[in-house]
C-alpha cells in the first residue's frame, strides 16, 4: 500500500462530523479520483463490482477512464459507492482480490475504498474548485514538488478561513506533520493561537487548533485557552484544556487554572474552569478540588472528571 506522505498516521479523533478523517483517506489511498458510479454487477451473493467513471484524477489513476470498486453488500461497511453521484474516492489496490476471484484484467483496474470516515464526500459541479478536491489536490501536490513552506501556508490559510470540517482537517493535518509546522512563521502562529482562543461556534475546530498550538508548546497558550472556558460550555473543550495543561505544565497546570478561577465571576466560567482542573488528572488538581465547597455541583463534576479513586470517592460522598 502506497503512502502519499511519510507520516505515521494519527490523531485524537477518528472522525465524527462530515469532515472527519478525509486527510487520512487521502494519505492512505493508492488512487484519489473524483468518480461517478455508473453501473454495478453482482459477482456472487457476497461481492458486488461497481464500475466508476473517472471524472477527475487527483493522483494515481494513470490515465484510466474507469475503474472497478469492490463492495460487500452483506457487510456493515460504512462507505460504499453511491449510484450516479460525483464523489471523491480514496481507493486502495485490490488486484489481489480480483485475481483470487478470477476476474478479467480487462474490467480492471480493481480497487476497494478506504474506511476512513468522510473520505468519500460529494463533489460539486465545478470539480477543480470543489473545496474537498482542492484539499485533496493540496495534499497530492505536496508530494510532487510543492515546497513544504507553500503547503504549510496553504494549510494555515485553510485552517483559518476554510469551510467547516475542511478547516479542521487542515489543522489535523498540520498536527500530524511537525515538519510543516516548522514552516509556519510567527505571525501565522499568532493567528492560530488567536483563533484557538477566540473561536466559540465550532468547538471541534477550536479543540483541534488548541492541540496544534500545544504541539508547539507556545508560551502563554494555557492562559489563552482558559479565557474561553465558560464562553464555550462544551465539556469536551474543558477536557482538552485540562489535557493540554497537564502536557505543558504538569502539576503546575492546576495553579495556572486556579489563578483564573479567582477572577471569574460567572458560574459557567467557574464550572468550566473546575472541569478543566479535574481533567488535568494531576495530584495538585485533586488536592485543590478536595478543598472546595462540598455541595457545589461544579466541584462534584470536576471530581468525577479527575477519575482517581479518591476523587470518585469524594464525589460519591457529595451526593
Amino acid at each position, binding site marked *: *500500500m502506497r503512502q502519499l506522505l511519510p*507520516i*505515521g*498516521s*494519527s*490523531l*485524537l*479523533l*477518528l472522525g*465524527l*462530523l*462530515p469532515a*472527519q*478523517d478525509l486527510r*487520512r*483517506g487521502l494519505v*492512505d489511498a493508492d488512487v484519489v479520483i473524483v468518480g461517478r458510479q455508473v453501473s454495478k454487477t453482482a459477482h*456472487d451473493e*457476497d*461481492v458486488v463490482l461497481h464500475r466508476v467513471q473517472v471524472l477527475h484524477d487527483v493522483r494515481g489513476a494513470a490515465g484510466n477512464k474507469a475503474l472497478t470498486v*469492490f463492495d*460487500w453488500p*452483506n*457487510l*456493515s461497511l*460504512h462507505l460504499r459507492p453511491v449510484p450516479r453521484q460525483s464523489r471523491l474516492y480514496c481507493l*486502495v489496490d485490490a488486484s*489481489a*482480490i480480483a485475481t*483470487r*476471484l478470477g476476474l478479467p484484467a480487462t474490467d480492471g483496474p480493481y480497487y*476497494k*475504498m*478506504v*474506511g*476512513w*470516515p468522510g*473520505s468519500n464526500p460529494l463533489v460539486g459541479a465545478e470539480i477543480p474548485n470543489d473545496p474537498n478536491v482542492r484539499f485533496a489536490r493540496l495534499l497530492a501536490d505536496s508530494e510532487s514538488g510543492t515546497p513544504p513552506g507553500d503547503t504549510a501556508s496553504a494549510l494555515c490559510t485553510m485552517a483559518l478561513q476554510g469551510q467547516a470540517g475542511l478547516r479542521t482537517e487542515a489543522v489535523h493535518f498540520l*498536527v*500530524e*506533520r*511537525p515538519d510543516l509546522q516548522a514552516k509556519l512563521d510567527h505571525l501565522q502562529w499568532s493567528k492560530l493561537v488567536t483563533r484557538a482562543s477566540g473561536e466559540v461556534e465550532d*468547538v471541534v475546530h477550536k479543540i483541534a487548533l*488548541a*492541540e496544534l498550538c*500545544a*504541539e508547539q508548546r507556545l508560551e502563554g497558550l494555557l492562559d489563552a485557552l482558559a479565557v474561553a472556558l465558560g464562553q464555550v460550555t*462544551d*465539556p*469536551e473543550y474543558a*477536557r*482538552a484544556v485540562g*489535557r493540554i495543561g*497537564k*502536557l505543558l505544565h504538569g502539576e503546575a497546570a492546576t495553579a495556572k487554572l486556579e489563578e483564573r478561577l479567582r477572577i471569574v465571576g460567572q458560574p459557567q466560567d467557574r464550572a468550566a474552569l473546575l472541569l478543566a482542573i479535574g481533567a488535568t*488528572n494531576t495530584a495538585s488538581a485533586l488536592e485543590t478540588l478536595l478543598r472546595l465547597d462540598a455541595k457545589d455541583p461544579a466541584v462534584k463534576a470536576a471530581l468525577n472528571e479527575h*477519575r*482517581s*479513586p*479518591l476523587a470518585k470517592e469524594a464525589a460519591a460522598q457529595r451526593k
Partner: protein
Amino acid sequence: MIGTAPSRHQRFPGPLPPRWAGSLLGLCLAACGGSSHTPSDALPTIVTAAFSGASATPSPGDTLLLFFSEQVALSPGALVTNADLVLSGSATLGNVTVPPSLLSPNTVSVTLGSGVDFVPDSTTVTLGPGNDAVRDTLGQLGTGGPPITIGTSDGVLPTIANVTIANIDDALNGTGPAGGTLQIPSNGWTLDVAYSDNGAIATGQTQVTASVTVNTTSGPQAPGTNLRPFLTELSANNTAATYRVPASVSFPLGPVTLSCVVVDVSGLGSAASTFAATVGAFTDQLRPFETSVNPQQVWFLDFARDVEAFTTSSISGGVSVDIVGFANTRSDFEDLLHVLGLLTETPNPSTCTNLVLTRFKQNLLDDLANLYSEANVAFTLTQPGGSFGGNPSVPYNSFGYSQISIAGSASSPGVLGVAIFDPSNTTQNDDTRTDFGASQIRLGIFLHTIVDAGMGPPASSAFRLTFSPFAESLGGVEIGTAADGLDGERLLGNLPADPRSAQIDAALADLARFTAVVTAHECGHSVGLVQNGAMPVGLYGNDVANFPGSSDGHIRTAALFPPGAINVMSPALSYSLAINPATAFNKLNLAYLREQVFYGN
C-alpha cells in the same frame, strides 16, 4: 386500583381514526337501535372533578369543572343539573340556569345555581342515568362510572408534555420530521408519559386508554376503557410515569391510538394526549431473539486471531504501529496490548499478564452488559459447543451462538470493525472470518486502527495521555516493569491512593470501554441494526436528511445525546466519543434490541 379489575364503566376512549369511528358508529346504530345497548365503545364517564370559587364554600356563580374520560359534546340547550349527576348525600348543584360550556374537548364547566350545597374534597359525583347533556363523539350519552370526589381547584391544569413508547425520543417515534409509525408487538413494551403541574399528581387517577378492544385477564376491554389497572406500573411520580404492557394484556393487530390523561390532587385533569402506533405480528422471522429454540442470543468474543504481529516506529510527534504480516503464536489482540504497554514479556510479578487480561475482559463484559441492558443478549468468553462448519451464517434456530473476533488490523485502512449485516437477526453469524466471500476481507473488531491513530500526534490527545505512562515507545513504563515491583498489587486494587494505580485503572477501563462500544456496534449490525427507512420499514438508517451524518445501515443522532457522546450505531466513532459514559444505543435502537419495537412485515 392497580392490579384490580376496573368497573365495567371505567373507560376512556381517545379520538378515533375516522374509518374506525364510522364503523363503530354504524355498529352501534345497527345493534342498539334505542335506549338499551351494549356499546362496543366505552361511554364517557367523569374521571375527575374540581370546584372553583371565590371561597372554600360553593356559592351561586361558582364553577364545577368536570373532566371526562374522552372527548365529549354537549346536547344543544341542555343544562347540567342534579338530574344528570349523582351527588353523594344530600349535595346539590342548586338551581342551575346557565348552560354548561366546553372548556376543552374533555372538560365541561358547570355554573352553580342558587341553593348550591356540597362539600369540596368530600362530596362525590358521577354521571347519572338521567344524563341527557353530555355525549361522546359517537353521540352516546354518558352514564355511571366510579364516584369521583370533587376537589378544590388549584387553578392550574396539569399538562402532558409527551407520550411515547419505550421511551423513544420524538425524533424517532413517528411524531418527528422523519415520519414513520412505530411497529410494536401485542405486548411487552412500555408506555411513557411525561407531565407537569404546579402541585402533585394523583398518579392513581391517570387514565390510559386505547382506540381498540384490548384483551386482558378480565376479558376484552372496549375501546376507551381505562387500561391502567391492567398495566404494570414501573414508575409513577409527579413528573413522569412508565407502564409496561404485560404478557397478560394483548393488543390486536393493526393501528392503535393510545390516549392518556393525568389528574392533579386538586381534581383538575389534563387534556388528553395521544400516541399512534401499529401493532404487528411478531413472528419468529421478525423477532430478533425469538426463544423457541435458543433461550437468548449468545455472542462469543474470540480473542484468538493470530495472523500478524506489530512493531512500532518513531514518527514526528509520535509513534506509528506497523503491521508485520505473519503470525507470532500470540494473539493479535495481545500483541497490541504489548504495544500499549499494558502487557510485557516478563512481568514482575508474573501474574500481571493474567491480571491485566482478566480485568480488561471483565470490564469489557460489564460494559457490553450495560450497553445491551434488558436485551435478551449475552456475551461470553467461552466458546459454546458446535461449529459454523465454514459457513458465514447459519439459520438462527439451528445453532446456539454468534461469534466475533477482537483482533488486530482491518482489511482496509480506517476501519474499526466489520460484521455481517443480518436484518431481523434471522441467522447466527460468524464475524471471525478472515476471508469473507473468498475476497480476503476480515471481519471483527480492529484495535490496530485506534492504537495506530492514537499513538500518533497530538501528544495532548486523551489516548496519548492515557497510554503514554505505559507504552515503552512513548517513554512509558510497561505494566509489570515498575521499579517498585508493585504493579501486581496495583492490579489487585491494594494501592488505591497510588497515582499509578489510577493510571492503570483508567487505561484498562477506557480501552475496554472503547472495545465494548465498537463490539456493541458490530454485534448490533449482526442482530439487525440499523435497517434503512422509517418505521415500520426500518429504524431510520441512511436518513441523511433528518439525521445528518447517517449512512447506509447507520444512524447518527447527535442531537439526542449530550455533548461528547454519540449513538453507538453512528457511522463513525472516535476514542473520546466511545469512552464517554453517555454514549449508548439511541432509544429506538435500544427498543429494537429489547424487542419493544420491530421492523418489517
